[in-house]
């Protein structure tokens, strides 16, 4: 009984704040609304009996990725820019297309996706996930760590400006002559 109340409350919260993400002018308010929406989704994950992933969702998404978004928005001072409104044609087509898609999806899900839950508990605690990660999914696990390393290096290189370019004259040491025009 209490499950249903929690589900409806946090589902409404998630949908309302998702709408605020796409509709609000100010990107900082959009980012904070997305944080609330992701937090409500974490509560959904707890209802789905995976509290491990709920905690991970808050730590990774709401706690790290959205902080990164907020940093970029604040450092680039993006809230000062007036974002030009999209042309009405694009807005109309965008809204109607996504609305039509939503209606179709919900209709077919409501009609055909009626499933009964099997009995028994769903064991998705840290121990089971850990065993599965290190046995069946060991190779993707290691590849993801290499991918994260590539992402770190890539992000650092892309966002750094003013890196000193390697100067062939200067590599001769402190006694290199001053070349005019460099």
């Amino acid at each position, binding site marked *: 009984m209490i499950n249903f109340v929690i589900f409806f409350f946090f589902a409404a919260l998630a*949908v309302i704040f998702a709408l605020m993400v796409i509709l609000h002018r100010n990107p900082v308010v959009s980012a904070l609304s*997305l944080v609330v929406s992701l937090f409500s989704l974490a509560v959904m994950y707890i209802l789905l009996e995976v509290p491990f992933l709920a905690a991970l969702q808050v730590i990774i998404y709401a706690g790290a990725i959205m902080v990164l*978004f907020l940093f970029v928005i604040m450092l680039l001072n993006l809230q000062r820019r007036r*974002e030009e409104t*999209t042309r009405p044609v694009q807005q109309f087509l965008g809204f109607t297309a996504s609305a039509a898609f939503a209606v179709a999806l919900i209709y077919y*899900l409501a009609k055909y996706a009626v499933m009964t839950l099997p009995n028994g508990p769903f064991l*998705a605690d840290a121990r089971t996930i850990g065993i599965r990660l290190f046995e069946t999914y060991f190779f993707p696990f290691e590849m993801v760590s290499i991918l*994260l390393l590539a992402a770190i290096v890539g992000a650092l290189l*892309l966002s750094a400006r003013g890196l000193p370019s390697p100067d062939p004259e200067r590599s001769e040491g402190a006694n290199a002559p001053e070349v005019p025009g460099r």
Partner: protein
Amino acid sequence: MIPTQWFLILGAVLFCIGVCGVLTRRNGITIFMSIELMVNAVNLTFLAYARQFHQLHGVIFVFFIMAIAAAEAAVGLAIFISLFHHRETIDVDEANLMRW
């Protein structure tokens, strides 16, 4: 117990809101946030099915999706920063050098 169907419908609604955001906004960061919303809707669908069939594959997949989305967010924001440094705008309609 909450029926799986409800979670799937919630995931569909969030996904379509994300699609709407990608299609109608011009601010690059907002488009990126709508993409994150879509990814999270997909995560919810994966977990709903994982619980439905009592299998851990969905859970592990969501684990990997979260890691990859974190990497994607970092690199994507770095690209936006360098775009901003060159063009002084974050409007995606202005990034049209490679258009016809």
